[in-house]
């Protein structure tokens, strides 16, 4: 199995200091990602789902070393990224790409599309001059735009098209691993499907490995082979997509799935309404972080943090109910 694993994350932690008082001393930490371990095998699409503020994006940024993790290991293809120098990282980043949520703010408004897509090609010395131009054309066609869009600026495109440009940029260095951080959250439904299908096709075509982050379980279900559910900086459940929807184990996953409105008025389901809101990650609840909102909480949940255990094959859950 070890040969199949492209990315492995071991007890990754990222705490952001909170400063306060007159001298801006550190008065606490935001536990954005707290002891997260998982792996992604080659060619797999793994989804990360959770509500806002649960640490999804921080996790993505830590994997790419865009923010330095507090502790833990990120092993990509046998290399521990945390121990790498900036120069070494630069080489490896050619293989890892990211697509951000808001295409408009991730594209430089003063650069033409050709410049935007061409920059990584030039930076990583993949092609120059005429070859670079050919490559840009090829990329644009791949994402469903035309080569004559090359010399336009981002604001001349609609949101969906902008996201296509961002995808072309992400693919420009022939990466093997792509992180898509809420790539369709800012798009309209009719456009969303097009982008999701494009990502699916490209993934298949180039045999990409993908970490797909979204708050929307239905999008995750459509895209991913395996799903990780996050709550307040921790993974609470991971399973194959089908297993997770058929047989969710963690009370939070159950509530999350039952909260999603289904576009079918004849389907009436029992709904689990969670009380309260997600607590602050600055002072997360003791023990299991979900216990203040959990209807099955008992004494142990308040004191001990549950470990991720394998309940069924490839189905892990962090909950005392299954210990």
């Amino acid at each position, binding site marked *: 199995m070890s040969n199949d694993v492209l990315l492995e994350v071991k007890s990754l932690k990222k705490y952001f200091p909170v400063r306060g008082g007159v001298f801006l001393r550190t008065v606490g930490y935001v536990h954005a990602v707290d002891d997260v371990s998982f792996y992604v095998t080659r060619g797999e699409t793994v989804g990360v789902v959770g*509500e*806002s503020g649960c640490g999804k994006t921080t996790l993505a940024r830590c994997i790419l070393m865009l923010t330095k993790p507090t502790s833990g290991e990120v092993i990509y293809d046998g290399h521990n990224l945390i121990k790498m120098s900036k120069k070494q990282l630069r080489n490896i980043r050619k293989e890892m790409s990211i697509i951000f949520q808001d295409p408009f703010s991730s594209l430089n408004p003063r650069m033409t599309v050709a410049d935007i897509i061409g920059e990584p090609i030039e930076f990583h010395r993949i092609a120059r001059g005429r070859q670079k131009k050919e490559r840009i054309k090829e990329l644009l066609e791949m994402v469903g735009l035309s080569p004559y869009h090359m010399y336009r600026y981002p604001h001349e495109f*609609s949101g*969906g*098209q902008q996201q296509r440009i961002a995808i072309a940029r992400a693919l420009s260095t022939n990466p093997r691993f792509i992180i898509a951080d809420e790539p369709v959250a800012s798009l*309209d*439904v*009719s*456009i*969303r*499907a*097009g*982008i*999701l*299908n494009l990502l699916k096709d490209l993934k298949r075509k180039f045999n990409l490995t993908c970490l797909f982050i979204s*708050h*929307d*379980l*239905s*999008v995750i*279900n*459509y895209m991913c082979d395996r799903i990780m559910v996050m709550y307040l900086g921790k993974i609470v459940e991971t399973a194959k997509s*089908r297993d997770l*929807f058929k047989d969710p184990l963690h009370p939070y996953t159950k*509530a*999350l*799935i*039952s*909260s*999603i*409105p*289904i*576009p*079918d*008025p*004849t*389907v009436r389901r029992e*709904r689990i*309404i*969670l009380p309260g*809101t*997600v607590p602050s990650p600055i002072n997360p609840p003791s023990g299991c972080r979900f216990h203040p909102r959990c209807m099955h909480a008992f004494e142990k949940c308040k004191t001990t943090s549950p470990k991720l255990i394998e309940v069924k094959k490839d189905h892990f859950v962090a909950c005392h109910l299954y210990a």
Partner: protein
Amino acid sequence: MSSSPLLSIRGLKTYFFTEDGVVRAVDYIDLDVNRSEIVGLVGESGCGKSTVALSILRLIPYPGKIVSGEIIFDGINLLTLNEDEMRKIRGGRISIIFQNPQTSLNPVFKIGYQIAEAVKLHQKISKNEEIRERVINILEKVGFSDPERQFELFPHELSGGMQQRVMIAMALSCRPDLLIADEPTTSLDVTIQAQILELMKNLQKEFKSSILLITHNMGVVAELCDKVAVMYAGKIVEYGDIIAVFKNPLHPYTKALLQSVPRIDVEEQKLEGIPGTVPSLINPPSGCRFHPRCKYFMKVCKEKKPSKFEVEKNHFVYCHLFEKGKF
């Protein structure tokens, strides 16, 4: 229901006269909302959903203007009222919840005070204790556990979900006949969205208000509404009972929209996006506005605006495919 509808919009046109040209945000729409009924208005961003809401309340900002049409609310044409009469209706008989509670609440006043303002203005209650009692009562109804204390909180001390509850409390404080909810759960997380939808459902049963729910989320509509109107590029393209529209969508746009939503209850789903993008409302396509993106495009679609066809009882569609004798 044989009695006349609570709200009846006829031939409404709301245009924005910008420097770049006339934006036909709402272009001749008809819409009915019956008493104690929840009607959904769905469409993508920029299709004119919110402009419909603002037109009903006559809150269209400059350079927008209601060009023509009628908005009959409980027998009165709102477009003929003067500003004073309109003010009595806004917040009193018709109220609105906006998408983003953070920007709709005033950050420097306590939430209790902000709710009290509406009560004071519309309910003719002057005794402070009585107002306070009313506000605390309504706060409790929208799910505040300790309203006596929470009365004194400022908006920033509340989470997004709680802020939206304050907005709902404010909107319902005068027991309006019609509540317009403009994307009430779009900025919220799913578990919080579930809470708010449940709350709205329960309050609707209790208060018997009619709700016009504006959203782009087909799931939310299916969950909450009795009827639904689908809007595209300033026009309503289909209107009918919720089950009829979802089970037997007629307009190609409605069909495509339903097929482009990923679902969790369907395995191995194949999503179909709609090619192209939403057209500009300054120069909308001729004829049927959906024709450049439509699978079933015919020559007539480009030339003639489709008229309204009642395909089943109370299920209307604006599409040439349903020309008499063809379906």
